[in-house]
């Protein structure tokens, strides 16, 4: 028997397996688990969107589309960005429909990063950023956001991490896993650093609609930033469309053309059915979206309050659908907390260090779960925490 591992490309071999994967196996084997570990809405895609998709299938829309995506969808995205954030992109050459933000991120990194280029990544962050940079041949440089700042990265921290090799900055606010958001003022200070050091910004704003305090600031809308920003977004979170795999990238024509070059050879186009559904979502999905957001907002308040009452300090996240409570009072590491919690109470949460070392001491809890599940889960976490604290 050959050892097939030896045949693997070194870059891939050296990427460690996702911290979530091992934990997933543990949770998947158990029955009756209440999961607060899911990074997607608990709502099913609103019916009018599903219905529009069924109609498109009946009408026989089953072909490839243009590599860049359906022009009608690009136009709708352009109109949406213009109306919501006053940023104008030409649907002809400044917008690209991708297979979710995941593909958009991969494309953005691959067209920007030269071998050895450094990409700044504020952590905790989504699990694919660091591997994405490595796969693109770059060097990920982590910036640890601090719990005392509610995990909001500062312009000063970013500036401190800049070296002559720094090429780009990866921003993702509202943030998965912490729920942190940055104000316009904070983002403007970051924009000044970006300009000073001539950086490219890849801004993953997939949770933009899920902002509960004030208004989301689109990074590209800041003066001078649109040109040097690759804005990534999609339909997964706001419209509960995770499985459809459809998103978009917006930037200057040069970047979009380069991204489209890779996209046409590797992906060809985003699924036409999902693109048709996305058009419907933009056209008339706002009402249903606002209803979902209101429900998240209510659960958010309930969960934050519950964690603080339990004795696990939890700052109030301004966005996304996660809370990131501090579990250090239990004396457990975040992995031990998550493992013992699921074994003893059948409640699944995700250890914070899966999102970068600065997440150690915290766990990610998604409140994209029914009210009944949340109430029961919080009861179990309260009992569990009391037991652990008593033992100290």
């Amino acid at each position, binding site marked *: 028997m050959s050892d097939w591992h030896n045949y693997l490309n070194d870059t891939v071999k050296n990427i460690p397996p996702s911290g979530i994967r091992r934990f997933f196996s543990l949770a998947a084997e158990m029955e009756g688990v209440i999961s607060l570990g899911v990074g997607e809405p608990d709502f099913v895609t609103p019916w009018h969107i599903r219905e529009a998709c069924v109609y498109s299938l009946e009408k026989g829309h089953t072909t490839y589309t243009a590599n860049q995506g359906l022009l009608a969808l690009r136009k709708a995205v352009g109109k949406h960005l213009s109306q919501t954030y006053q940023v104008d992109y030409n649907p002809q050459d400044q917008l690209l429909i991708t297979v979710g933000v995941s593909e958009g991120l991969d494309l953005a990194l691959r067209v920007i990063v030269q071998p050895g280029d450094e990409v700044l990544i504020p952590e905790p962050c*989504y699990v694919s950023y660091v591997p994405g940079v490595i796969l693109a041949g770059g060097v990920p440089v982590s910036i640890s956001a601090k719990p005392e700042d509610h995990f909001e990265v500062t312009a000063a921290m970013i500036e401190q991490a800049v070296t002559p090799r720094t090429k780009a900055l990866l921003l993702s606010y509202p943030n998965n896993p912490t729920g942190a958001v940055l104000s316009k003022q904070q983002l403007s200070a970051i924009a000044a650093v970006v300009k000073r050091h001539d950086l490219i910004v890849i801004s993953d704003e997939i949770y933009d609609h899920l902002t509960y305090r004030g208004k989301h600031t689109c990074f590209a809308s800041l003066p001078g930033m649109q040109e040097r920003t690759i804005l990534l977004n999609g339909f997964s979170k706001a419209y509960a469309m995770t499985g459809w795999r459809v998103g978009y990238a917006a930037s200057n024509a040069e970047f979009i053309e380069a991204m489209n070059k890779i996209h046409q050879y590797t992906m060809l186009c985003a699924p036409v059915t999902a693109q048709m559904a996305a058009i419907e979502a933009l056209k008339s999905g706002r009402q249903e979206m606002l209803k979902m957001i209101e429900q998240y907002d209510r659960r958010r308040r309930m969960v934050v309050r519950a964690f603080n009452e339990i004795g696990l300090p939890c700052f109030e996240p301004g966005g996304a659908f996660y809370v990131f409570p501090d579990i250090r009072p239990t004396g457990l590491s975040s992995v031990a907390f998550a493992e013992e919690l699921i074994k003893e109470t059948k409640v699944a949460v995700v250890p914070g260090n899966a999102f970068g070392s600065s997440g150690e001491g915290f766990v990610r809890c998604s409140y994209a779960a029914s009210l009944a599940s949340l109430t029961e889960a919080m009861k179990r976490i309260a009992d569990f925490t009391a037991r652990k604290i008593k033992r100290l």
Partner: protein
Amino acid sequence: MGNNNNDKTDQSILELLEQNCRLTSGEIAALLDLEEMIIQQRIVAMEQKGIICTYQAMVNWEKTATEKVNALIEVKITPQREVGFDAVAERIYRFPEVHSVLLMSGDYDLAVFLEGKNMKDVAQFVSSKLATMEHVLSTATHFVLKTYKKHGCIMEDGETDRRLVITP
């Protein structure tokens, strides 16, 4: 401003209770990030004003052994001076077997929803009580074959959570 906030709170409480009337004031307080006392006061006030009329369970009788027959009866009536349709409507809704009575625009005046033990029961009620009532011009009875959705609640078993247990 204070009134506006109260209105908004009341509306949120109503939306939550309309979906699940078993939520406690403590739970509602947590969801809306308010004091439990405030929620209790608002609910009592709305009960007294008749804004919250009752707290009921939504039952799918089709899943039980109990036989029930439902019917929608279109009723045409002659409105009366001063009281309009109200007097006749009241005479109809006083019957306990009548579930709902609505004044409609269009071809007929009252939509009367009726529940009986069986078809004979319903027929009996229509022919002896309803059709013979003074000012009632005509009735048209439609039996309900199946209830799919009622008061926003889908009667079929709902969509299950198909998500993986842990996703990034």
